[in-house]
């Protein structure tokens, strides 16, 4: 349920402050900012920010720092785990990875 997709705010017009254009890959779509606020905490435009889009609304601001941490942890883990992975490949479970 509830398809939500990360998108970057690329255009905003202060005459219609509750609306902004976001990019999802190469697709561009107007979304409503009411649920996250037209401006950020410092009162600046949100252009450049990443948001989660659902049914034409920006629903949440993506937290870059949070994301970096998680990804860094996962990368670290994947380096550590390369042995395990190799083992799994050779040991031949019901599944494998190319």
């Amino acid at each position, binding site marked *: 349920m509830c*398809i939500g997709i990360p998108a970057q705010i690329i255009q905003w017009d202060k005459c219609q402050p509750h609306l902004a254009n976001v990019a*999802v*890959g*190469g*697709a*561009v*779509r107007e979304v409503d900012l009411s649920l996250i606020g037209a401006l950020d905490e410092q009162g600046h435009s949100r252009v450049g920010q990443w948001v989660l889009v659902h049914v034409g609304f920006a629903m949440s601001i993506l937290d870059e720092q949070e994301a970096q941490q998680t990804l860094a942890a996962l990368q670290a883990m994947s380096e550590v785990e390369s042995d395990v992975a190799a083992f799994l490949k050779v040991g031949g479970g019901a599944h494998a990875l190319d």
Partner: protein
Amino acid sequence: MSNDVITFAHGSGGRAMQQLIQDTLVRHFDNPFLRRGEDQARLPLTQLASQGSQLAMTTDSFVIDPIIFAGGDIGKLAVCGTANDLAVGGARPEYLTCSLILEEGLPLATLDTIIASMAATAQQAKIEIVTGDTKVVGHGCADKIFINTTGIGVISPEVHWGMDQIAADDAIIVTGNLGDHGAAILNERENLGLGDQLVSDCALLWPLVEPLLSIRGIHTLRDATRGGVNAILHEFATASGLGMQINEHALPVNDAVRGMCELLGLDPLNLANEGKLVIITSAQSAAAVLNALQAHPLGKDARQIGTVNSQSGVQICGAYGVTRHLDLPYFEPLPRIC
């Protein structure tokens, strides 16, 4: 006021129809076949027969909404679509018919734009539009304009392309990004407002096919229109009794189409194309085919997406190595949102 739109009078066989045919169709398509004004075009059969021993004939009706869209219009589409169905048989498109079903109220200016677009597309491909027909139906009995084109051409004697040639271990090649046409149309028709990067790939494919005529080892080709590449692969699998295995990570998709597919829960494999071929070729010829394709702007993103195997159906291998059957959807895909 009432003279700048299509009315029943334009389809009644009376004076208004004669005028429309002369002013719009004959004017834009102008050629000696059409100018004769007989009930049938009379084509040089002896000359056709000198080019080969098989006449290719194909028909398609075009019913697209919107009728003018990013990357083309129904007129361009109607010429390209039928020309491409000839091209994929190895036949240079020679002659086309053009049959119009017009809804009462269609602006004559729109019709003129569309017919001019057909004429320009045909001219570019050196195709003659040799006979036609015009019908008018009441408001709400058609959707603005439907165009049927039927085409003929002579199959190049050196080619024997057909689904019966498909063999295990053949390479599966697509000539470029998937789903451009379907994505552009869905965006405009459903008012999705997904920007101007979604552009139909509608194009004449003969220039891409012609260099392939001389390459040995090509088994069959098909333009991946309605139903997308998925539908073509299923046709190949059913006709050949073999398996079509493709790699998800090898599928070329442009960024805008990918964005749309993520937003709406769609799969580019199921979206229509109007300028892409799926080619089945022997593994040995794959490199030559790719070289020939990539030498042409229409084929610059061509790549091998999979191989034919001795199983059955269509299988797709995902990013993590899991292979699954790819079902042919029973329905046209609808957006998934909530």
